[in-house]
């Protein structure tokens, strides 16, 4: 059998999906199923004076309408899952329906249940809510001020948490020969999966079991949290993630809506379905980013960076989301120095409540923001001292021999060789030639620019004892069970739950290579808390590094047991058995052999097992890595700016990523492509904008500019492979490289293009209007 790991196998998932045989939440139809909708607040901040549901209840088909007051005492608040320590974190309870005050446009006010979707909507419009509007707190910096309206009366200055890490001695800054101060806004964006959120609840009053299908990236976390919210034991609550159309972090969160559906199904003893609408998604689904980042970077004229001071003011929205508090603190603040050997660094983060939709993890979660500030700051510093952006990176980056490398904030990077992808990317783009061409083009008035991002990210969550130390309310190990059936096919049960990544393909490849059996003989089971013992979810680029490793270990354990049975049957000692490509043979006598299928049968029939060996062929693994993994790479963008219109054309995009062992280059490239579209989207087009009244002005795809395929050139991608020593596969994780690396690469390229105008920074997204204005203003000077 040929090598399976490392080959470009087509996705095992796709035939099902592209022939319409997938089963998404909205495909689920249950007998007697009711439909639900949530009436949401149209105001950013208001007191609920009165809710009149009389007219709404008269609509034919309406079964129930619940308000926040109706649910008091029957359903608990939905908590955050990340209590970051030592930051005076103040959690305001988020009840699934607002009780007496709404705190953002989209806050749930009433739950309507009816026989059909039309009746639900008709009734929803007839609910009469009397509000007394209050002044809203909207932007994070303004909301911290003394006179700002309070989102929660008992939380002073709207300060949700105040976190600090690292110190920079004043004398280091004083001694610096050069410094740059810059404020960046990494704007709020909408993860926008193609499938919105959904939940379907079914309660069996006979057994007391509640089944909840919901669009979750982490069904076991949903089970754990909702078990508390709904006051039901985990053994009686089954959470299933059906096929999902993406999540990007937006479906990590345990949401009020899911709790409401579970509650109503149990209360009414009938199945209840809720499918989120797109416009609803733009008000009620968690957003990403929204961080104002103030940076001070200090160094010498020879290019050595000596210190970095960062302040992050993070808009957390009206409530703390599931992962929200960790994003701007642990994920961001410990990674601020990127790949660089900067001796002193400090980060101070303010988490600020506002009357806006909560923000949560979004593809990269803290690392894209962190990479953005350091990769932009290092470019600005290079400009300040007149140094080439590649040279300054080479001077400061950790070298191969520095690994395991400890950064200024104390994180230990597992492995790295930053020069490797940098050299390769420079070759691919032909840097010297570009600079020559740029000179010529500038003479002809053309604005072309090149931008770099030499990034590293914190991935593969992770060691569970660290999770405990940083206040994350979960373990972050993974489990897998490899079960071999009597005729030799295999079912693999995995904790980490996919939603478009292609786990069945990559994990299948790991098992296929280990056991020497064809991909078609391997079935993967995920996403159901009743089938899989435990799992901590798919986020933080952890599935292959942690979940895949668990699969590999379980497969090895199956082989160990199978070898003992083979040795027994072949009447040799275990040490004499060699297992290769699905065949157990005896060293030196290769004709003496058993196939994997034969041993599968022997193990399951148990007619003739060695002494002390139990029947069946099955093994499990619970893998908890000793450290995180740190993927890295170099991305280079080449842009041209039209000075008459401010329009930016992305001419080339080169991405060289080192994600450790690549299981399947095809799916890995797919991950890179998707991440790039989102990261470049953040730089150039996307952005959620609130009015000063707290209304989302960008609530449709007419106003919120999602990139289209035609906006991009053909991405030029490549991988280098520096294996991680912290897991048996050597994988580092690929899911978030694109969003982490690309945003600053694009910005740096545009700033390079605009260098003749002396423009140093423009706030994202770089719409033609903003770019044109910056050019016009600089011409006017």
């Amino acid at each position, binding site marked *: 059998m040929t090598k399976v790991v490392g080959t470009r196998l087509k996705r095992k998932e796709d035939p099902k999906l592209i022939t319409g045989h997938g089963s998404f939440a909205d495909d689920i139809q249950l007998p007697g199923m009711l439909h639900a909708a949530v009436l949401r607040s149209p105001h950013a901040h208001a007191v609920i004076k009165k809710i009149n549901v009389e007219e709404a209840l008269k609509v034919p088909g309406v079964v129930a309408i619940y308000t926040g007051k109706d649910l008091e005492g029957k359903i608990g608040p939905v908590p955050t899952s990340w209590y970051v320590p030592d930051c005076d974190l103040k959690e305001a309870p988020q009840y699934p329906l607002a009780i007496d005050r709404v705190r953002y446009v989209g806050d749930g006010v009433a739950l309507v249940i009816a026989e059909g979707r039309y009746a639900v909507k008709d009734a929803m*419009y007839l609910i009469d809510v009397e509000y007394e509007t209050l002044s809203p707190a909207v932007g994070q910096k303004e909301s911290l001020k003394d006179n700002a309206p309070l989102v929660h009366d008992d939380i002073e200055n709207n300060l949700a948490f105040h976190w600090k890490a690292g110190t920079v001695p004043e004398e280091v800054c004083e001694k610096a020969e050069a410094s740059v101060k810059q404020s960046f806004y990494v704007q709020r964006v909408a993860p926008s999966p193609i499938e919105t959120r959904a939940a379907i609840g079914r309660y069996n009053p006979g057994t007391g079991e509640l089944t909840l299908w919901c669009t979750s990236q982490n069904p076991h976390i949903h089970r754990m949290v909702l078990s508390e919210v709904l006051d039901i034991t985990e053994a009686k609550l089954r959470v299933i993630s059906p096929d999902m159309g993406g999540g990007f972090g937006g479906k990590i969160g345990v949401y009020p809506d899911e709790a409401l559906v579970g509650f109503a199904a149990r209360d009414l003893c009938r199945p209840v379905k809720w499918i989120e609408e797109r416009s609803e998604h733009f008000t009620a689904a968690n957003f990403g980013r929204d961080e104002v980042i103030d940076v001070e970077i200090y160094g010498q004229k020879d290019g050595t960076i000596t210190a970095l001071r960062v302040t992050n003011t993070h808009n957390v929205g009206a409530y703390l989301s599931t992962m929200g508090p960790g994003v701007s603190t642990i994920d961001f603040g410990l990674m601020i120095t990127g790949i660089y050997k900067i001796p002193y660094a400090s980060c101070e983060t303010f988490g600020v409540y506002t009357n806006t939709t909560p923000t949560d993890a979004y593809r990269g979660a803290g690392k894209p923001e962190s990479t953005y500030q350091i990769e932009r700051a290092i470019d600005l510093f290079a400009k300040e001292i007149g140094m080439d952006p590649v040279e300054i990176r080479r001077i400061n980056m950790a070298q191969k021999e520095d690994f395991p490398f400890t950064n200024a904030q104390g994180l230990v990077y597992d492995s790295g060789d930053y020069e490797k992808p940098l050299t390769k990317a420079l070759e691919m783009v032909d840097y010297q030639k570009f600079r020559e061409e740029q000179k010529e083009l500038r003479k002809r008035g053309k604005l072309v620019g090149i931008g770099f991002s030499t990034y590293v990210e914190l991935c593969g969550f992770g060691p569970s004892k660290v999770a405990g130390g940083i206040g994350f309310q979960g373990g972050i190990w993974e489990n897998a069970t490899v079960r071999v059936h009597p005729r030799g096919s295999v079912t693999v049960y995995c904790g980490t739950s996919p939603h478009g990544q292609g786990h069945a393909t990559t994990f299948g490849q790991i098992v296929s290579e280990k056991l020497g059996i064809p991909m078609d003989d391997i079935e993967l089971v995920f996403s159901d808390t009743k089938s899989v013992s435990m799992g901590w979810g798919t986020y933080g680029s952890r599935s292959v590094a942690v979940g895949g490793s668990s699969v590999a270990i379980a497969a090895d354990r199956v082989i160990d047991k199978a070898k003992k049975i083979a040795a027994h049957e072949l009447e040799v000692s275990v040490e004499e058995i060699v297992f290769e490509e699905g065949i157990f043979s005896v060293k030196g006598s290769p004709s003496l052999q058993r196939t994997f299928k034969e041993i599968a049968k022997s193990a399951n029939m148990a007619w003739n097992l060695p002494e002390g060996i139990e029947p069946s062929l099955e093994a499990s693994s619970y893998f908890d890595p000793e450290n995180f993994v740190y993927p890295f790479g170099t991305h280079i963008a080449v842009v041209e700016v039209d000075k008459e219109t401010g329009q930016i054309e992305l001419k080339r995009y080169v991405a060289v990523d080192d994600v450790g062992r690549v299981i399947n280059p095809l799916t890995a490239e797919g991950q890179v492509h998707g991440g790039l579209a989102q990261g470049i989207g953040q730089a150039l087009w996307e952005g959620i904008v609130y009015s000063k009244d707290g209304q989302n002005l960008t609530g449709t795809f007419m106003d919120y500019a999602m990139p289209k395929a035609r906006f991009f050139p053909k991405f030029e991608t490549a991988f280098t492979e520096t294996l991680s020593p912290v897991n048996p596969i050597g994988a580092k994780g690929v899911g978030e490289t694109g969003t982490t690396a690309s945003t600053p690469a694009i910005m740096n390229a545009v700033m390079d293009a605009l260098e003749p105008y002396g423009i140093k920074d423009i706030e994202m997204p770089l719409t033609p209007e903003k770019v044109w204005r910056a050019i016009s203003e600089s011409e006017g000077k």
Partner: protein
Amino acid sequence: MNIEHTYTFKGIPREVIWRTIQDKEVLQRALPGCKSFVEVAEDAFASELGISIGPVKGIFTGDVRQVDKNEPESYRLLVKGKGKPGEIDADANMFLEEIEEGTRLQCSAEVKLTGVLASVGQRVMSGVAKVVLGQFFKEIDKEAKQLV
């Protein structure tokens, strides 16, 4: 959101325009899609308007009040409307000015929106307002001409 609109009533004196736009029956006829217009107190009306322009579609019920009247120069028009697409809260200053050609009416409004009106409608709202106000003033123009 601020909405500014100016309309010139050619050859019509200011007093006539003032009288016209204070006439309840005229208002009912002139308001686009007006289904009902009932005076509930002095200078306060309960109304129902059917509007259908782009995403701004549906029946709006609301209260209209005229305050700070300074005949015949200015008044403030307060509109609170509610419909399926969201809520409108407008505070409009209306100025009437005598000019050579007749009377110029200037409307300057601060408008607050919620719901779909805000998230979807904001982009087209000033355009919608222009159309609605344009139709309204044209009707007032017609009515006023009959009084000249």
